[in-house]
């Protein structure tokens, strides 16, 4: 199934027969022949084990990496034709370790991309306030703080606010809640789900947690050893016959230490 030009027009992101290898292992594909069209406004979850190629697939979208063969199209244009700086300014990016700049205040972190885009100071200040409110942080209280003065959950909230600040149509998230304690994680997942519904962004979300995938996704893409093993809606995922999908489904019910 190769994406047609028509699909390129309608979809936000299209992978067309994409393969990716690392230089020192030319015989092993990290991603092999991936074909996938990601629609505008959907929350697509890339699910897979460690090393299955989830993060690689994500980084191919904002041209942190580019394919050895095939093309990735963003908004109808191949990433190799985009100016990488322009491309990335239009794509929000959230990672597990937040990557907040430790020498910038929360407000400066959130306002960075607008500042790079030469917005006026007053407009940046307004936007920062709006974004912090959006992620549930009081701008007056948290704006002037430094990242080290925040909890892990607050840092991830700031990370989301920062990614959304310049109003990009696409949001890439690499296990954004992976390092949080279970209670905070559940809290952020709930809030993020309602946020995603309101914002109508194209969201590509990487996780190895099926529970999280089922909860957040409008569609789940299962990756196994660099190949797309299955594409499914969350409600049908548990009934898939693919062995890797079944392995993931089985993990939902397993309790550590329980005899089977």
């Amino acid at each position, binding site marked *: 199934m190769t994406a047609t030009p028509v699909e390129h027009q309608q979809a936000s992101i299209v992978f067309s027969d994409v393969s990716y290898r690392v230089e020192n292992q030319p015989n092993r594909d990290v991603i092999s022949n991936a074909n996938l069209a990601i629609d505008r406004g959907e929350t697509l979850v890339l699910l897979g084990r460690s090393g299955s190629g989830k993060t690689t697939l994500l980084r191919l979208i904002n041209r942190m990496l580019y394919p050895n063969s095939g093309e990735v199209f963003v908004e109808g244009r191949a990433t190799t034709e985009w100016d990488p700086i322009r491309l990335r*300014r239009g*794509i929000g*990016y959230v*990672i597990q370790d937040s*990557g907040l*700049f*430790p020498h910038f205040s929360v407000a400066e972190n959130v306002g*960075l991309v607008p500042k790079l885009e030469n917005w006026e100071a007053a407009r940046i200040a307004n936007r920062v306030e709006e974004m912090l409110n959006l992620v549930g942080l009081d701008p007056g209280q948290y704006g002037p703080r430094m990242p080290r003065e925040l909890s892990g959950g607050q840092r991830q909230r700031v990370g989301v606010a920062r990614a959304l600040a310049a109003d990009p149509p696409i949001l890439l998230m690499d296990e954004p809640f992976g390092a949080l304690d279970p209670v905070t994680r559940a809290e952020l997942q709930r809030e993020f789900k309602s946020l995603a519904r309101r914002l109508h962004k194209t969201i590509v979300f990487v996780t190895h947690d099926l529970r999280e995938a089922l909860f957040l996704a409008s569609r789940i893409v299962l990756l196994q050893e660099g190949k797309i093993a299955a594409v499914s809606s969350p409600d049908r995922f548990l009934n898939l016959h693919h062995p890797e999908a079944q392995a993931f489904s089985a993990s939902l019910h397993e309790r550590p230490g329980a005899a089977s």
Partner: protein
Amino acid sequence: MNFWDFVLLHQAEILYATMDHLLLVFVAMIIAILIGVPLGMFIVHRPVLRSVSLGVSNIFQTVPSLALFGFLIPIPFLGGIGKRTAIVALVLYALLPILRNTYVGLTAIDPAVLEAAEAMGMTARQILWRVRFPLALSVILAGVRTATVITIGVATIAAAIGAGGLGSFIFRGVALVNNSLLLAGAIPAAVLALLADFSLGRLERRLQVR
């Protein structure tokens, strides 16, 4: 004549030599910083130049200081007798800690921060100036501090090639076996080194970002 009488008698001369010494150190440090910091920034993405420049500045560090002053005397333009030669030698000495700390500070940055910076669409130049450099500043300053303390000590030897400074007391003290003369050079040099270490250390802590 005891030491304190000596100091009182020669206080103008000691003060002059101390200022002279400070001038040598100050000029050498400014030049070493102006070379070391930009070079350190330049070699971040250039591995060949990195090993060459770190290697060469490492070699300068290993040459005994008196020998380095001696080697420079016959070299045209840079060498000869006097302050200019002394400053060249001091710069070569101070270079390694500054260059190495600049490079280490710029590269030892949380990979998540650099990944986020790149993914947000910062250019390589913006990442260097707005992210790497401010985060490396305290490490760079630690290099400047080490270099300053070394330079204050090594500059006493510059008197051997007629560059003046506190070393002139020390060399005379050694030659005349006169402890008062020796101490009149050694004590101010030690105090200068301690003061530089202390004040630069405070500045370093203020610039530290965690």
